């Protein structure tokens, strides 16, 4: 499929064409992403709230839908404080680095087969490399604050990032082995060619990637750098206002980035679930159904709102949203070319959202690891298992290529061997027994 932006090509001056089109794509990705990130924060607050028998933001806009914008404005208007004794140049640089590292990686993510900013031969290496630069934002931010808690948080964070990057790298290697290319688009195409998402043949690698991704983004249960009960707010304790919002943006963008990497590598990127099963073709009407449901939801909740005049704007806004969703749904249903064009992006985003929901769910569920436990988990468990998985994945590939065994079957042999190793490793740690000594009078 051709890039939709190529339609514009004839209208652009020839000299600028190689610059303008990518710039336009970058602009779309950047703006879209900023919006997505802002609403991930909203979604996190809402989902956590509902998990915790609360309502979450409800005041700004209907169901708090304008809350992210209000928060952004508030942070922009706040006073910009630089602590005394801070290295102001680095203090300024660090959050910028953090955001830059998170956003640059998206240039290489194939959102759909017709929508990728650029596809390079070493795509995956670049994404990993660039996203690993985010560590500078953390270390430098913690160091330049000239305060103890940020410095401790930064050091913890850096150690954590560096160690989990190893496990992450090994998890990525098995996807590379299967696809035989570093190009992000090539990896997805390999999954289409094999007719199976790599998560189904390399579940252990996917799991390791997931856990390492949580650790890389400093999320619960690995959120030690920001452990509120110990280190106040970690490396960004001294940050406020716009700089803080940059960190915030960077952190959530990094979440989206690792989710995108995971989706591209293991969940078939832009393909819809079970693409090889023709009888599921009707799934392509999923966007229609989704937007229709959104419209329905808006209308139902508009009905439930109080009739009082001060609620009028909220009701109108909700109705407007519902109307927009309805128009989109009808539009998609009526214009099959449009529906086909958005399939890739739609499924990609749906999968990313599923992944992000996992992050949020974890945050609502788990306590926090202690630092030494985190390190032990990383070095004594994750990395050995990841190495074993890479090895056995190679063995499986040899069985498949040289002996002509079934593709999935030979890889599953490798996976089972890996699980055996994991069990052996886990057996070394004692398992807890939740019992009391005894009861009675």
């Amino acid at each position, binding site marked *: 499929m051709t890039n939709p932006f190529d339609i514009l090509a004839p209208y652009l001056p020839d000299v600028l064409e190689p610059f303008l089109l990518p710039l336009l794509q970058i602009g779309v990705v950047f703006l879209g992403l900023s919006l997505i990130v802002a609403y991930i924060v909203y979604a996190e607050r809402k989902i956590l709230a509902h998990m915790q028998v609360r309502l979450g933001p409800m005041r700004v806009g209907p169901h708090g839908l304008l809350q992210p914008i209000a928060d952004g404005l508030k942070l922009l208007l706040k006073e910009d404080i630089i602590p005394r004794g801070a*290295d102001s*140049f*680095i203090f300024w*640089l660090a959050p910028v680095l953090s955001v830059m590292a998170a956003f640059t990686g998206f240039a290489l993510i194939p959102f759909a087969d017709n929508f990728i900013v650029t596809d*390079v*031969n*070493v795509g995956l*290496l*670049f994404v*990993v*490399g*660039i996203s*690993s*630069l985010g*560590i*500078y934002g953390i*270390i*430098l931010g913690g*160091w*330049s604050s000239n305060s103890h808690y940020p*410095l401790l948080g*930064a*050091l913890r964070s*850096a150690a954590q990032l*560096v160690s989990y*990057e190893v496990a992450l790298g090994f998890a990525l290697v098995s996807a590379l082995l299967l696809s035989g290319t*570093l190009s992000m688009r090539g990896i997805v195409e390999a999954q289409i060619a094999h007719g199976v998402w790599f998560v189904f043949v390399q579940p252990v690698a996917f799991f390791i990637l997931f856990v390492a991704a949580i650790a890389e983004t400093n999320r619960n249960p690995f959120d030690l750098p920001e452990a509120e009960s110990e280190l106040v707010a970690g490396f960004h304790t001294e940050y406020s206002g716009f700089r803080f919002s940059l960190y915030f943006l960077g952190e959530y963008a990094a979440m989206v980035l690792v989710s995108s990497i995971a989706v591209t590598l293991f969940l078939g990127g832009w393909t819809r679930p079970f693409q090889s099963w023709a009888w599921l073709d009707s799934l392509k009407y999923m966007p229609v159904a989704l937007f229709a449901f959104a419209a329905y939801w808006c209308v139902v909740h508009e009905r439930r709102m109080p009739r009082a005049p001060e609620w009028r704007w909220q009701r109108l806004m909700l109705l407007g949203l519902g109307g927009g969703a309805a128009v989109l749904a009808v539009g998609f249903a009526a214009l099959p070319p449009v529906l086909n064009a958005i399939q890739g992006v739609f499924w990609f985003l749906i999968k990313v959202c599923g992944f992000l929901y996992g992050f949020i769910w974890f945050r609502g569920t788990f306590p926090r690891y202690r630092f030494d436990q985190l390190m032990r988990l990383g070095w004594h468990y994750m990395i050995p298992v990841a190495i074993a998985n890479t090895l056995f994945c190679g063995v499986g590939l040899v069985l498949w290529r040289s002996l002509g065994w079934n593709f999935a079957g030979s890889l599953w042999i490798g996976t089972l061997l890996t699980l055996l190793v994991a069990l052996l490793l886990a057996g070394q740690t004692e398992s807890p027994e939740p019992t009391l000594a005894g009861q009675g009078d």
Partner: protein
Amino acid sequence: MFYLVNFYVLAALAVISAIFVITRRNPVHSVIFLIITLLSLALLYVQLQAEFLAAVQIILYIGGIMVLFLFVIMLVNLDIVTRQAPFNRQWHVAGLAALVLLAELLAVIYWGRATPTLPQAPPTALQPNTELIGITLFQNYLLPFEIASVLLLVAMIGAVLMAKRR
């Protein structure tokens, strides 16, 4: 034309920040400028069709070695260093000698620029880069590769041993 402009911009960036690396008092600033130098070099590698090396440069050099430097800077308390004289006593002589070296090198390269009458390679000669490197590395340079891995192991053990508190 685009490539030439690109080259000059990146080269200027690399040289200027390299100069900052050796002149800044605060080692953290030095690290940042070194990162900028390394980054512009990585971009030059891309222009030289060495994408794999560019990626390795970013992951290993910038994401690994420089982080290590930052770590060490934070471990050793460097408040004093920023207040001490940054240069040693023989810096005039050393600087002069180095400048002479620079002049020599530049002169040699400039006068000898036409000597290598080798053909400029076609733009796609080194593609696909990763595969080529992989094949060459594991076929022609397998032994050096293994030796390098042993070297890394030794370095790792050595570093851990030295940094460990007795």
